């Protein structure tokens, strides 16, 4: 369903991704872990082509883009619209209410009529447990609430895959749970998800596959119980000991 082949990404001289291959089947949850600077965020950003890979192929559903030659802008947009992204720092639009944040995509990008979008957005806010907060501005919400609005905003575009980049690491510890719960529910509903996170409990409980990245390559991958309990690679062991 999602397939990345031999993706490379450099910034000037810095090679950040050095040949990544990854398949994610429909309805599966993949968790990516790895030290800071290993390229996790960059990989997610290549998946939704916020960053254009220097080399390689990215396919989602039927649409496949090869980055060996220059790509057409329109195709980029098309690929991007198949993904929904949730950011570490929420990145809500501060000048719009929770409801308007969720409405923005369907209304402006898809051009759906306003009434339909309002009920769609209201529904999504209820789904993430924030039906009451529709008219609040982001600064009036707690971090966990903001992040849940962020999830609703991404869902509003009905993406084929949801990408999460450390969605809970900016949150106060007692707020982490409410966001993870929404993500768990999504996974149970069959959403395809790629999640960068250091929440081990989530990874162990929800992930179908765990991928450990370091220095721009995938060092180890497998079922969560295997990777966490019997890591094969030295680097994986070392990393797991640091974060436990």
């Amino acid at each position: 369903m999602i397939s990345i082949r031999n993706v490379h990404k450099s910034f000037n001289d810095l090679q950040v991704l050095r040949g990544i291959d990854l398949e994610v089947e429909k309805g599966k949850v993949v968790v990516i872990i790895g030290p800071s600077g290993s390229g996790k965020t960059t990989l997610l950003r290549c998946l939704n082509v916020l960053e254009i890979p220097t080399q390689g192929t990215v396919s989602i559903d039927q649409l496949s883009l090869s980055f060996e030659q220059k790509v057409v802008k329109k195709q980029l947009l098309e690929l991007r619209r198949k993904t929904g992204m949730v950011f570490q720092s929420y990145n809500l639009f501060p000048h719009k209410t929770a409801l308007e944040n969720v409405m923005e995509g369907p209304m402006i990008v898809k051009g759906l009529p306003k009434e339909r979008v309002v009920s769609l957005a209201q529904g999504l806010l209820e789904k993430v447990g924030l039906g009451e907060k529709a008219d609040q501005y982001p600064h009036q919400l707690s971090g966990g609430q903001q992040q849940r609005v962020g999830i609703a905003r991404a869902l509003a575009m009905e993406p084929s895959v949801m990408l999460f980049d450390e969605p809970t690491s900016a949150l106060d510890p007692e707020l982490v749970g409410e966001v993870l719960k929404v993500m768990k529910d999504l996974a149970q509903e069959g959403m395809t998800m790629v999640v960068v996170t250091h929440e081990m409990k989530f990874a162990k409980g929800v992930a179908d596959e765990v991928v450990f990245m370091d220095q721009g390559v995938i060092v180890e991958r497998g079922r969560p119980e295997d990777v966490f309990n019997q890591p094969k690679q030295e680097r994986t062991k070392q990393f797991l000991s640091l974060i436990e």
Partner: protein
Amino acid sequence: MAPMFLSNFFENPDRVIRLWEIAQSSFWPLLEGALKFSIPLALISFAIGLMLAVLTAVARLSGLWPLRLLARFYVSIIRGTPLLVQLFIIFYGLPNLGIVIEPFPSAVIGFSLSVGAYGSEIVRAAILSIPKGQWEAASSIGMTYAQSLRRIVLPQAARVSIPPLSNSFISLVKDTSLAAVILVPEMFRRAQEIAAFRYEHLLIYVEAALIYWVICMILSFVQDQIEAKLDRYVAK
């Protein structure tokens, strides 16, 4: 040589009374100059200049280098040379090329170009001050560059740029006095006219300055209102 009051009041009460009369009789003509010319000139030029400023700022940030270069050149020329000379060129220079523009439109052109250049730097800085995450969030829900700019970035940049822009506007109100040189009978020109007849330059200039001051205070007040309104979505 006006504020003789201080030293001369007891020696010369007649003169003080005369000055008071002059100040009174010149008040309405000055105010009329302000209301009919200075303020409309400032308002119109600012509105046009602001559009220019946004266009120029976007051009400066665009990926096309000829556009960037053009915007840069425009800003450099306008900011690098005195406004008075620019007005001179528009009004007295362009006719040499067969382009003859009336005084008021000439002033509007000159001031708009000026606001456009100075304002573009403000708008550009404001756009750059919006966190990259906002662009990314907009892109991530599928918005194009233009959509992100219009719906997400510019509205937030507007809030950031209000204080410096209102500075520019206040400067503009005072700079309209330069329009006298191209035949626009704005307030400062009126002051000169009255002073020439009454021979009380300092008195009348101080009076004009006070009127400018009141206008600027009103503008500052309006600015505060707008800021407060836009602050509704920002934490206190």
